[in-house]
């Protein structure tokens, strides 16, 4: 045997991890050897020192920060990640898509993804179908309600429901067609119509504004208007969905202006389609701004973040 202090069984003895016969062996060693006794005493002192360290605690808003970040990532990962960590799981994409489009998902970015998906489906209809029925779509509420169902759960033959893409295609559709901009806006900025001003500066006409993605979608067809306002919907904690059609230049300029006002707009996160596909004939594509109204206090207390992974406080 090595020096007594080298004997691993001393640690295991301290931890109560020895078989009875090993325990007896260590006790014999302790009775006979002062160095072994000293080593065990030191280990006990170490344990006391380690366990007397104060408990480290996280700040009270840590949970909210985690949820918000998770929601951002949930939007980002399935659409921008290639064969990422979620793919190897059998059915993982399908279930993830199910979580994204589940109608009662309350967290706002997931709702935004659902909104983006529904907008894609709406805009993705054949051009002649849209042009023939711009003012008289099927009953909006019913149509929206139907489209909010997870695609996988819909019978494909049901009247009025186009064949559902599978979950992988769902992710791909979102990735290819819709730019989603997640943006925190202070209540004051929302009340001051700062966002509307940014849109107006770049000739972006909102097609729909609502706290409810379904409501926004129901009003999508041909309703672009400069008079649509964010402020009536500006309630802290509630997302506001604003859809516009924008050229890449318009979008870039609008984003630059949003980012130039960090006190009013925070966490401007863009979910850019990975594989840019030609959009509408005018070179425009659908952009969904998801505005998250935050109180002045939380806006002041959290640092501005311009990427999907906010800096630690």
């Amino acid at each position, binding site marked *: 045997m090595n020096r007594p202090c080298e004997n691993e069984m001393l*640690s295991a003895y301290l931890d109560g991890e020895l078989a009875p016969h090993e325990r007896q062996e260590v006790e014999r060693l302790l009775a006979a050897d002062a160095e072994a006794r000293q080593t065990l005493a030191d280990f006990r002192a170490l344990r006391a020192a380690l366990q007397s360290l104060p408990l480290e605690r996280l700040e009270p808003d840590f949970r909210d920060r985690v949820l918000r970040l998770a929601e951002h990532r949930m939007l980002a990962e399935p659409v921008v990640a290639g064969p990422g960590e979620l793919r190897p799981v059998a*059915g993982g994409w399908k279930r993830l898509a199910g979580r994204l489009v589940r109608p009662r998902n309350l967290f706002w970015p997931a709702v935004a993804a659902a909104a983006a998906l529904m907008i894609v489906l709406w805009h993705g209809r054949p051009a002649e179908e849209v042009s023939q029925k711009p003012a008289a779509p099927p009953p909006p509420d019913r149509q929206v309600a139907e489209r909010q169902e997870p695609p996988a759960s819909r019978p494909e033959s049901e009247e009025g429901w186009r064949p559902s893409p599978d979950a992988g295609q769902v992710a791909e559709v979102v990735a290819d067609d819709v730019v989603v901009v997640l943006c925190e806006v202070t209540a004051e900025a929302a009340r001051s119509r700062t966002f509307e001003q940014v849109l107006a500066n770049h000739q972006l006409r909102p097609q729909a504004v609502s706290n409810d993605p379904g409501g926004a979608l129901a009003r999508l067809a041909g309703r672009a208007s400069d008079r649509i306002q964010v402020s009536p919907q500006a309630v802290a904690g509630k997302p506001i969905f604003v859809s516009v059609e924008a050229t890449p230049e318009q979008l870039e300029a609008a984003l630059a202006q949003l980012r130039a006002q960090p006190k009013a707009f925070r966490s401007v996160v863009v979910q850019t389609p990975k594989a840019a596909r030609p959009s509408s004939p005018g070179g425009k594509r659908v952009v969904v701004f998801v505005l998250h109204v935050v109180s002045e206090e939380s806006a002041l207390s959290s640092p501005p973040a311009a990427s999907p992974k906010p800096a630690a406080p």
Partner: protein
Amino acid sequence: MNDDAQLIAETLAGRSTAFGQLVEKYQDRLYNTMVHIVGSRDDARDVVQDAFVQAFLKLETFQQNCAFYTWLYRIAFNAAASLSRRRRPAVSVEEVRDSFGREPVDKGAGPPEQMEEEERRRHVQAAIAALPEEFRTVLVLREMEGYCYEEIAEILELPVGTVRSRLHRARLQLRQSLKQVLAIED
């Protein structure tokens, strides 16, 4: 179905506030451990945050053949190991002590005993952080978390014999680093 399983089921059903309850339940425990694993509060916060986010995103993959917290731990340890590879090839006791010293100590308010206690605490934290990573993780899981050898082996995916060996060597090394502090305590 236990509480965690219920909360996981609710999260998967679309109620993200249920996941918020899981975060609340485990955040401080995981953070406290990670502070000692990664050796800095800021890094520990990042690791814990990332672990919870990853857990949320991968929740469908959780097989429930171990406790949720054990699974979460594995994610956090992987994140910590990754961070360690990126940021800290080698750390001295002095460097780590400095990093823990960033928290302000009110030197004017406390009695000398309090300041001594604070100094001793920083010394211990620095000594833990200066241990090689493979020793540190085993030691923290045993002494801070109270896991048995088998549980540590499961979390770290190591043989039990390796856990026992590393733990003993970690204690010997820590004893060497803290000789003076321990002598003061005696």
